[in-house]
């Protein structure tokens, strides 16, 4: 019998009403109304302001309109938990369209375990009704092709044609008249276009 440690508490789905606890104002509760958790960086945080947005699609091509996403990233210098930048955000998909979006800054390169640079990326977790344990993926940026080509995590994906599912696409023009670069990152839970999800 190998050495036994405590077992981790098992996961359960976040369910359809995950917003009550995690985004109460979004659920219509008049609590914590000052919180705008999808905004990681307004003006004043050093770095290039960007927007990351997308839709999560189920195996039949339907948008998930009850999904909750969380983002975790380094600051523009590649530091996590740097003073003045929380680095974490949370958002619920639009209940009609399924569109979600984060307003943040472009992360800097961070070190891999052997100190090689990783391409700029954000970690992204998905929680929803029907998802028994959250899904973990990464968002990379299509205007950093050289860094992406050398990224150790992307290179560890054996099926080369699946690496593309992690690369967000820069949209032409700004969003809604603003000039903030907007990156589109659609997530496909199942099927031919299935996004890479990590076990880490």
């Amino acid at each position, binding site marked *: 019998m190998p050495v036994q*440690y*405590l*077992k*981790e*508490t*098992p*996961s*359960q*789905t*976040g*369910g359809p*009403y*995950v*917003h*009550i*606890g*995690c985004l109460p104002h979004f*659920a*219509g*509760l008049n*609590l914590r109304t000052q919180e705008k958790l999808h905004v990681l960086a307004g003006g004043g945080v050093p770095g290039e302001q960007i927007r990351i947005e997308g839709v999560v699609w*189920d*195996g*039949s091509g339907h948008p*998930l309109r*009850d999904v909750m996403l*969380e983002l*975790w990233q*380094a600051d523009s210098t590649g530091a*996590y*938990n740097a003073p003045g930048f*929380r*680095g*974490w955000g949370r958002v619920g998909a639009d*209940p009609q369209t399924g569109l979600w979006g984060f307003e943040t800054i472009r992360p800097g390169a*961070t*070190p891999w*375990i052997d*100190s090689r640079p990783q391409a700029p990326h954000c*970690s992204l977790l998905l*929680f929803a*009704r*029907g*998802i*028994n*344990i*959250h*899904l973990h993926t990464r968002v990379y940026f299509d205007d950093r092709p050289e860094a992406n080509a050398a990224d150790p*995590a992307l290179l*560890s994906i*054996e099926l080369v044609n*699946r690496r593309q599912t992690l690369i967000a696409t820069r949209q032409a023009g700004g969003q809604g008249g603003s000039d903030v670069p907007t990156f589109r990152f659609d997530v496909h*839970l*199942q*099927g031919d276009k*299935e996004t890479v*999800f*990590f*076990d*880490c």
Partner: protein
Amino acid sequence: MSSDTGEFARRDRAWHPPAFTPPYKTSVLRSPGKALVSLRQSIGERTGPVLGHGDLDPLDNDLIRNYITTGGEAIGERIIVHGRVVDEMGRPVKGSLVEVWQANAGGRYRHGNDHYLAPLDPNFGGCGRCVTDDDGRYFFRTIKPGPYPWMNHNSDWRPSHIHFSLFGNAFAQRLVTQMYFEGDPLIPLCPIIGTIRDKAAVDMLVAKLDMNEMVPFDSLVYRFDIVLRGRRSTFFENRPEGN
């Protein structure tokens, strides 16, 4: 804090529910069909956000009183839920955000998509949060949620439950789960609990009545301890980044 002090033990995904669990119908189209890709943890997985410190309201962990709209307290069975958050090595998980949400005493959620005929309680929101202390302890005060029907096999019934969201101190420790109540006969009938294969794993989600801690003439108490992933020692690893 969430400085990078090492790698976490791998997750036992045979212990957690798998993604594809057809008796829980919504999982059928929301489960990846391809294998997860194994990823070595680097700094982004081994660190996590520091949340809750300094911006918690004093009533955030009191669901009986944090949503009063007509002047009274929430109606229902008054309880306190408490426990410790530790890692797999038994060490306390300190200073970490715990979020909870739940239905009211009649099984109705305060959410636009819940159309169950049981009424809303004007003085109950169903949302709470707290931060673990240096011993990993947390507690909140609430009313016991009621069971409710849901569209699965033409009215399955969820057991009474409270949703938990846990951050730990790193993104690799992130966990969302549900707490159930000792003795509830709906537990073995529930397709969502049934997504977990091992009965010992289900038992970890069942809070125990804690009469030793009950508050006389006020509240019953349930104890729910939580285990998050533990950091490996990695005595033997080359640590070029200098941890």
